[in-house]
Every structure is written in C-alpha cells, then in structure tokens.
C-alpha cells in the first residue's frame, strides 16, 4: 500500500494498522532527510498549509511548522488569541475565510472534542487534528509509538504504562488506540479521580500504584498534570501527587530491569516526573521531539499525495 485510507488525520481510531505502518516507513525516510546537510525536500512546494491553533501550543506548533517548512510548503499561522474569534466569529466562518486564501491543508488544535471532525465534513481541505479537547492527539501518539519502535525494534508485545492525568489527556486516548493497533499491551495508572470511569472498557489494565505499574511495564509514558483543565480539585496538593504518583529515580532503582521513560511534554518537573529521571539515560523525551518532526512530515506528505 502506498496511500493512506483517509483524506484527513482526525484521530488514531479511524486509522488502520497498515496506515500506521506506512506512516512509520515514510517517517524513516524523513528522519534520514533531517540528518542531511540540507534538511529540505521540495515535495509540498505547491501546497499552502494553515496552522490554526485555538489553544496554546509550543512544541506541537513548532514541530508542525518545521515539518511543513522542511517539505517546502507555504505556511500561514493563526492563533485564536490574536484573531477575530475574540470578536465572536464561528469556527466554520474562521476556517472558510482562511480557505478562501487558497489553503490546501489545515492543521488544527481546538479546545472542543470533535472540532476537526466537524470541519472535515464541511470543507474541502485536508484536516490534521493537532489535538481536540480531551479527545485525540494523533500525531503525538504516532511519534510516541514510533519512538518505542525505534528504541526497541517493535511495538508488538511491549507493555506500556501510561501514568498520570488520564482523564484530561488526549495523548492518553490516542496512545491507547495506537499502541493496541500495533499489538502492545497498555496499562493506565493514576489516582482514581484522574482515570475516566469506564477506561477498562478500552481493553487496558487499570492500576493505582505507580510502583506496580513500573514493575509491569517495559515503557512508561508519564503524562502531565493538566492543571488548566481542572476546574475542581482532583487531588489534595501537587506535593502529595508527586509523593504518590511521581516517577523518581528511587522507584526506578527498585526495579530489576531497565525501562524506557517517555513524556509528551511540557514537563512539570518535580510533579509527575523528577529531573533525575527526565534527564537520565532511560529517558527518550528528546528523541520523541526529534521524531515528532519526521512523523509530521510523513503525515503531511502522505495526506498531500493524493492525485489533484
């Protein structure tokens, strides 16, 4: 197969395993491109991409923008904080206005789950979901799984523990879908208040003891406490959270094996993960960032590669 089965990347849920493998194989080639003296290819030179971010983002936005520029696309950036959205414009009006400027692809982050799905039904351009509310963040899950594949050779058969604020995390849901499609076993671990009620229905193991989760897994993906999405108190204090659910060197030293530590960023150092773990040789956090550009290049390239 040389082509994705979808025109939009809205979530991992509607990708097939073959789609994910194709994205990984294409990303392998882009990783090689990123290590050349001239890190740029002309594939998307006739394409204009709008990065439409209704929510704050640092690394995802930078990573997408870099990927687009490495593919020679023309890039326009939109941030809702400095736009007419503040004047009451609707989502579809905002995007249609951007599309009137002959934009071919839209990379969108939005605070509401399903916003990119809604757009994909109403506009012609390819849509890439860069995070919708607490729903999905497909490129993050792809780069996480790709980083596991790169480090260990294969995702199939691996035990991956996702630790932290699962309730508010779009990364967790996309990761669960992606890892399961690739044949990994998934466990979620966190305080009972930060785990969705019926998460077990997705076929994941549920654990509340970080020590047990770390003993079980080959890979620990530690997620950020999303304080900005928490309207009520889900745990007494950050100090207490860190004490019971933070991943630190002491916990890792108690294991009789070496595990891989991941974090999608941004890190709350000293809360969900300690610096002595985040900066240790077990951590592949910076490789995740590097792989993010290659994965996003692959997604953009494959979605654009449909005959005009």
């Amino acid at each position, binding site marked *: 197969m*040389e082509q994705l089965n979808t025109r939009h990347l809205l979530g991992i849920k509607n990708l097939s395993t073959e789609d994910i493998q194709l994205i990984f194989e294409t990303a*392998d080639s882009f990783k090689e491109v990123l290590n050349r003296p001239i890190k740029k*290819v002309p594939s998307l030179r006739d394409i204009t991409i709008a990065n439409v971010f209704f929510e704050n983002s640092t690394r995802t936005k930078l990573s997408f923008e870099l990927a687009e520029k490495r593919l020679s696309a023309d890039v326009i950036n939109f941030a809702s904080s400095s736009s007419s959205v503040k004047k009451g414009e609707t989502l579809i009006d905002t995007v249609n206005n951007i599309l009137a400027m002959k934009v071919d692809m839209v990379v969108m982050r939005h605070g509401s789950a399903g916003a990119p799905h809604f757009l994909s039904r109403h506009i012609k351009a390819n849509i890439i979901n860069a995070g919708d509310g607490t729903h999905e963040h497909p490129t993050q899950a792809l780069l996480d799984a790709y980083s596991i594949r790169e480090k260990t050779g294969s995702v199939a058969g691996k035990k991956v523990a996702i630790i932290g604020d699962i309730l508010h995390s779009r990364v967790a849901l996309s990761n669960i879908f992606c890892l399961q499609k690739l044949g990994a076993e998934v466990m979620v671990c966190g305080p009972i208040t930060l785990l969705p009620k019926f998460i077990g229905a997705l076929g994941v193991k549920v654990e509340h003891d970080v020590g047990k989760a770390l003993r079980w897994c080959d890979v620990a993906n530690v997620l950020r406490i999303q304080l900005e999405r928490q309207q009520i108190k889900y745990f007494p204090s950050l100090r207490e959270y860190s004490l019971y659910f933070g991943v630190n060197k002491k916990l890792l030293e108690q294991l009789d094996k070496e595990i891989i530590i991941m974090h999608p960023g941004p890190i709350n150092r000293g809360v969900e993960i300690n610096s002595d773990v985040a900066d240790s040789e077990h951590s592949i956090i910076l490789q995740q960032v590097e792989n993010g550009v290659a994965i996003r290049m692959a997604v953009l390239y494959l979605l654009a*590669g449909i*005959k005009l």
Partner: protein
Amino acid sequence: MQKRLVLDQAQLSITISRFCHQLIENHDDFANTVLLGLQPRGSLVVDRIISRMLEIQNVNLQFGYLDATFHRDDFRRRDLPLRVNETKIDFLIENKKVVLVDDVLYKGRSVRAAMDAMIAFGRPQKVELMVLIDRKFTRDFPIKPDYHGRQVNTLESEYVMVEWRNQGFPADAIWITEKESK
C-alpha cells in the same frame, strides 16, 4: 507473454566489466569519485559494479544509494504515490566526481529528480550518468548518459524489464515487453 531479449547473462556480465574498465580509464585511482545508485533498481547495478571492480582491480569504491521520491515532479499527479526507498549516503559529495547509476534511462525525469536530491549532500565537481539501457528518442529532458550498456528503440507501449538472479529470477537478463505484461 511477448518479450524479446536485449541482454542475456553473459552479455550483461560483459557490460558490467566494460563499465568498470571505462570508470578505471576516466577516474584514475577513484580517490575523488563516488558512485550513487538510484533507488530502487540502480542500486542493484551499483552492487554489481562494486563487486566486479573488486575482482578486476581490488579497488574499494565509495558508493551510496539515492532515493529521489521526494524530489519527483509527478507528486500529486500520479494515481498512486510512489513508495519511498532508503537513501544511504554516508559521505558528502562536495567537490567529488559523482557517477549516477540507473538500470534504464527513459524520460529522464528520475535522473532530473536524482540530480536535485543529490545536491542535498553537497556541490559535486562533476556528475556523470551511467545506465544499462538507454531508450532512444523518448526523453522529456535534455539528459544523455555518459556510459550506456545498450541503446534500444522502443515504443511507448513497451517496458524494459531488468531481471537479476539475486532477485529470484532464473538468470540475469534484460527484456523488452509490452507494458500490460510487466
């Protein structure tokens, strides 16, 4: 299936040996020369040249594989995008003499893309083109090989098929067939 033989195993072997001797003539001790095989099929030709060169003169030529998929001019214009192959070049080509190697030269578009892709690895001093088969009168670009195995007259409806034993074929051979039967 209608097909006619262009080069059989013995002839192909002679052609590979001739390529080696021509390279030796033109590139002295190969101190400043690199071979780049165009992925996917030019790389197989490079492999043959490298192993024959070792037999003839015990020369260790620097070589790599170049994939030009991202530089093609038919992206978004084909029914199906091309599958990307590995690029494996562990050196820079800055000020080097580069010999691009492919199996069949047809429209010249792959070679154009390859020259574009190659520049990402530096500014070469000189670029030469080596092909096993040169399909005459079919070029879309002003591209001409410096070394060719055999020049052939072909129709648009025909396809040149290069078979290698290590790819599972019974013998090394080059055929011309109708496109439908490839």
